[in-house]
């Protein structure tokens, strides 16, 4: 039997990790909900964001909390270039072409990561001194706590952006009905570009946050893509709150899976949950009524 303290610690760690998963998933969910494209390179973009934060930290000692903004800026630009140069040509022509374009991009990013940094895993750390919080039944380490708070802020900021800014409203309008949005004078091409930039920037942010907790190597892309997609499926496409809840569910169940079944099963548990939900309740556990179809 596993000690109760270990269980509560795993649950707390899982919740804190879930925040970052939710950030990664939110980027994927936005692009999927609005553009009807699953960004197969999302995990690899996360890897790039993590490496940007790690390299900035290694070179200058700047905390990845700030490096995150560099990563987000870079990934935002990558998203815009990707949309303008490649995806624009294939969107709306069935699912095969976008899948393959993004698959190719994932290969390129992984290969570049390998070439620039080698196959070894690297990691950054918070770079800020301080103690964690002892809850009595579990301990919240400082990096996990800080990354969780930043993750929740990012999610809140994205929600506020979509809810209250003109561009955000235009994005939601485009998600609901592209044709109608265009009749209302919304430049939907521009909306798609911004959406993809936003989605990839969130992948970069999630990567930078993860770099403070886990070693990153050039091959982590596929695994984080599947995790992010699992969260999207759990939370329902287009539901921001659902994404946060889904992230926490995934984080907790992964940690409990690793605790009870052994570290090798950490990813198996998350993938099984993912497939299970996908097959049994494909609209997600918390699908919002008006979410994108």
């Amino acid at each position, binding site marked *: 039997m596993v000690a109760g303290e270990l269980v509560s610690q795993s649950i707390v760690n899982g919740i804190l990790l879930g925040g970052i998963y939710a950030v990664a998933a939110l980027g994927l969910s936005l692009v*999927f909900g609005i553009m*009807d*494209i*699953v960004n*197969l390179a999302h995990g690899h973009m996360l890897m790039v964001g993590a490496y940007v934060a790690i390299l900035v930290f290694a070179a200058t000692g700047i905390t990845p909390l700030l490096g995150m903004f560099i990563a987000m800026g870079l990934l935002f630009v990558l998203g815009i270039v990707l949309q303008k140069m*490649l995806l624009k*040509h*294939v969107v709306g022509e069935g*699912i*095969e*072409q976008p*899948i*393959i*374009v993004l*698959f*190719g*991009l*994932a*290969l*390129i990013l*992984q*290969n*570049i990561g*390998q*070439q620039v940094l080698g196959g070894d895993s690297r990691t950054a750390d918070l770079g800020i001194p301080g103690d964690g919080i002892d809850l009595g039944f579990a301990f919240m380490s400082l990096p996990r706590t800080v990354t969780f708070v930043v993750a929740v802020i990012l999610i809140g900021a994205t929600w506020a952006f979509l809810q209250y800014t003109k561009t955000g409203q235009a994005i939601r309008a485009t998600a609901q009905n592209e044709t109608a949005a265009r009749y209302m004078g919304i430049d939907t091409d521009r909306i798609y570009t911004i959406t993809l930039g936003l989605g990839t920037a969130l992948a970069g942010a999630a990567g930078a946050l993860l770099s403070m907790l886990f070693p990153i190597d050039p091959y982590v892309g*596929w*695994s984080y*893509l*599947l995790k992010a*997609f*699992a969260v999207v499926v759990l939370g329902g496409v287009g539901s921001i709150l659902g994404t946060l809840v889904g992230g926490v569910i995934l984080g907790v169940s992964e940690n409990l899976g690793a605790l009870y079944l*052994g570290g*090798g*099963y950490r*990813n*198996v548990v998350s*993938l*099984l949950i*993912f*497939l299970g939900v*996908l*097959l049994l309740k*494909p609209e997600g556990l918390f699908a919002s009524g008006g979410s994108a179809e």
Partner: protein
Amino acid sequence: MSFLERHPEEALFANRRLQAVIGVVVLALLTVPFVTTDSLTGLILTGLVFVMLGVSWNLLAGYAGQISLGHAAFFGMGAFVAAWLTTPSAAGFPASIQLPILVAVVFGGLAAALIALLIGPVIFRLSGHYFAIGTLALAAIIELLMLDQRSLTGGSTGYYVQGDLSINEFVSHGDVMFLLTLVATIVTVAVTYRIVQGSGGLAMKAIHDDEEAASSLGVNPLKYKMYAFVVSSFFAGLAGGLYGHYTLYINPESTLAVTWTIDSLVIVILGGMGTFAGPILGAALFLILDTGLAAVVGGIATTIEGALIILIIIYLPQGLYGLAEDYLIKDVDGGKTSEAPHSADPKAVTEED
């Protein structure tokens, strides 16, 4: 409704000059083990494995329109099941189940087909993006589980396969494996050709073009998706079993890795998705690219491959086959098929006559 038309490539193998070309290529391949070095034989064997992977993935993705990202799982499971049967003791199985390599690789293919048969009805509840990601997840689960089963797979140390088919000092184990792989490749191509030429192929193309319309016309989508999935998985597993018994070493981290899915996809895209000859041409080009690029540009070969598939899918969706069709088949066919570009309305062609 492109499935109602006869694609020019369907006449491909009916053409006498093409039959002659195919005959020459097969004869040339037959001589490979006897006239070339062992390493070149191995390289071309890899090319044949690529043909099997490409042709089988194309049946599922190009014809039936189901973009599976789990092909590696079937390749790898074929390799492992075949290895368990030829080298049972290494996995703790009784020596009595030991089978000759030829039988074992067929069982490897059958095991892969069985897995497809079992998971198909479940995984085909998903479609489009969900199917693609679902199969990617499924392959990841299989890889992780196999990696964890150290007693069955050797874990990250890998699994050494026993096998020696060498006949004498001139005909090595690799040479015999090459000939077996050649036969398997021909079978793969021939069976797939029969399927896509027949009513099954038409049904698959109909599902690809418009599943609802196909369904309303009496085509059972699940039945034909399963058909494509099971056949495709069988040949992927067969390829895995053969490749494992050529290299005589398999490892969950490499044999079940997503790399094999990537290779299958790149091969099909290079050659032309949904065209019959595409994956065969694509496998040849990929083999050259994979070895040639690695020699010339070193580590960034994958980047170039990635860029190539992106550019080809955008600007040349019919791939190398599309190019060949424009410049070569026209002449080979005496201009017969060139009058009917397969995307055009057939009526327009008759009016021109």
